[in-house]
Every structure is written in structure tokens, then in C-alpha cells.
């Protein structure tokens, strides 16, 4: 019996000491990791909203389309950055898009961060959305990449819809 008690005590004590050690290291490194993550996120969002310095993340409310994965507000009032995830066609990986919408509701920049379809969406097509508002006038699907371009267009429309929903919720809360 004594043998078992000793084994359990020793193993428990080692686990306890290691857990305390990990907690101490986590206490030191967690803020640094968090800051680095935030910096990387801000840098990635700044590419679609030129001049952006810092972002605040909105809580996604009911009614925001499923395509919208996150909505960020630029703290100086420059506009919004929205990340989207949509099923394109054959690939199992979703197409990931980041879109920057100015405070004037005009698209300022778009970046595809993940695209694994065999046929690429031409940059001339993806960037033709820049400067458009929520009506996306004169923009159609792209021949040869019809499904993916439709998914792309729908996702951008969802970005506007999601932004409207979140802003309405914010207005009501205030």
C-alpha cells in the first residue's frame, strides 16, 4: 500500500511543480504572444484599408451572413475591414477574402488570403470591385471561373449586409 501511495504522491508532486512552472512562463509570454498576434492581424487588415492604424473587433450578432467571419472597425474612423470565408467550387478548402470598406461605404481594397481552386480568379477581376459601393454595379461573374466568381461576388455582398446588421445593432444599443 505504502508503495502505491509513494508512487502517486511523487507523480502528483511532479505534475504540480510542472503546472506551476508552466503557469509562470505563460504569465510572462501570454501578453507578448497576444500583442504579436494583434500586430500581425492589424498588418494584414491594413493591406485592404490603407492608412489604418488599429482595429477593434465587433461581436457578430444574429442576422450576419454565415460567410462573414469577422468585422473590424478602424479606430480613427477610416472604415471597416471584414474577413469572409466562402465555398468556391471543387476545393474542400474555403476561399478566404479580406475586404476593406471605407466610412463612405466604398470598397477600398480586397485581398484573397486562401484560394485552392485549379483555375485562378484573375486579379483584374478581383480588383475591379475596388471603388464600388454595395450595389456592385457593372460587375458580373467571370467566364471560365463562373462558380468561384459568383461565390466571390456573393461574399462581397454579404460583407456589406453583415456590416449593416452590425452597425444597426450598435445604433440600437446606443
Amino acid at each position, binding site marked *: 500500500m505504502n508503495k502505491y501511495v509513494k508512487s502517486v504522491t511523487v507523480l502528483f508532486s511532479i505534475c504540480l511543480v*510542472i503546472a506551476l512552472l*508552466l503557469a509562470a*512562463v505563460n504569465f510572462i509570454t501570454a501578453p507578448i*504572444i497576444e500583442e504579436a498576434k494583434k500586430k500581425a492581424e492589424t498588418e494584414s487588415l491594413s493591406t485592404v484599408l490603407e492608412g489604418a492604424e488599429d482595429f477593434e473587433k465587433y461581436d457578430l450578432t444574429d442576422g450576419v451572413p454565415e460567410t462573414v467571419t469577422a468585422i473590424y472597425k478602424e479606430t480613427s474612423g477610416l472604415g471597416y475591414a471584414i474577413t469572409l470565408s466562402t465555398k468556391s467550387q471543387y476545393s474542400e478548402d474555403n476561399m478566404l477574402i479580406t475586404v476593406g470598406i471605407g466610412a463612405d461605404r466604398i470598397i477600398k481594397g480586397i485581398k484573397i488570403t486562401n484560394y485552392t481552386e485549379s483555375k485562378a480568379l484573375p486579379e483584374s477581376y478581383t480588383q475591379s470591385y475596388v471603388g464600388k459601393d454595395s450595389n456592385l454595379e457593372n460587375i458580373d461573374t467571370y467566364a471560365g471561373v463562373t462558380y468561384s466568381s459568383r461565390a466571390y461576388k456573393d461574399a462581397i455582398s454579404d460583407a456589406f449586409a453583415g456590416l449593416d446588421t452590425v452597425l444597426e445593432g450598435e445604433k440600437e444599443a446606443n
Partner: protein
Amino acid sequence: MKKGYLSVLINGLLKENPVFVLVLGTCPTLAMTDSATKAFGMGIAAAIVLICSNMVISALRKIIPDTVRIPCYIVVIAGFVTIVQMAMQAYMPDMYKSLGTYLALIVVNCIILGRAEMFARENGIFRSALDGIGMGLGFTIALLSMATVREILGAGSFFGIAIPFMKNYTIPFFTQAPGGFFVFGCLIAVVNVITKGKAIKKKEFGCEGCPSYAVCHVEKIAKEEQ
């Protein structure tokens, strides 16, 4: 007879090199040697864990009961691996990303558990630290030498810096898995030639050389007695 301090330290470099002689830690060796930067990062991370875990296990060797020694070793090793992971994520995020899941897999690296079982549990803290340094350096050198061959021939670069005259004559085979096995085999042969095949006594390749020998052996005797 116990070996001298210098002998313990340099053992891991060539005579008992964990990769080319003991053939342990093959998984990270093959996966992380397509680039010298990754190989160096993995080598240093594993060496830090090896030194620290060797020292702690040696310090606790008289306290840890035999029946729970493997779980105790794993907890200690996993603790140090997590510390290295957190530190790397905070201060070397690029390296952390490039090592990916292989960093966490150091926990199950045979070299570390093997040295705990074969050396640290029978030797003092200082000798165990020296063994950790030697084996860690041996592992890093082995990874770097493999990565040097693979990156230069396969990608025409070294530590990510392009070598001008090599850039147009790369052989992508070397950066792929079969190229890894090929270079691994060639380097084992080179080490065998240098040491004339006497790097380690033949009997150590048998059951006695295995980190799980003690557990296995006890079970085998118990079965025979039944």
C-alpha cells in the same frame, strides 16, 4: 567504469551520435532538414529540452519510484517542451511557425526519453547535463549537415540565402521525402566509414540498447516465471 567528463560530452558528437549512429529521432530529422534554418531551430529546441530534462530527471532519480518513472519522465519532458514552445512563440514567432507541429512532437522524441532512461537515471546532475549538451549538439550537427546537403542541392540556397551559381542547377528531389532518406543513408554510411563501423558496440544495437529495455525485460521475466 564511469567515463570521464570530456568523454561524456563528446560521445554524442560522433561515437554515439543520436541520429547517425543510434538512429533515433528519425522523424524530425527527415522532416526538418529541407532547410538549414528549420534544422538549426529544431536542433537547438531539442537540445534545450534534452539538457533541462536530463538535469531534472537526474536530480529526481532517487525520489522517483521505478513503477512510475516513465510517466514522470514524460511529464518533465512535456513541461520543458511546452516552455520552449511558449518562449519560441513569444520571441521567435517566425521560427515557431516554420517548425509547426514538430516542435510539440519533441515530447515523443526517442533521443530525449532514451537519454533519460539510459543515462540521466543512473548519473549525477553535472554528468547528465554534459550528456545533454553532447547529445543535443550531436543532434543539431546531424540535422545541420543533412540540411546543408539537401538545401544547397535541392533549393540552391543556404539558410534561405540564394547561392548565385547554384540557383539554375537545383535538384528538387533533395528537398522531397525520398531525397531526405537518400541523404540520411549516405551520411550514415559516411559516419560508418569514418568510425570504421566501430562507433558503437554491436550488442548495444540489441535489446540492451533500447530505451524500453528495462520495462520489456521485467515483463519478459515475469511471463517466463508464470
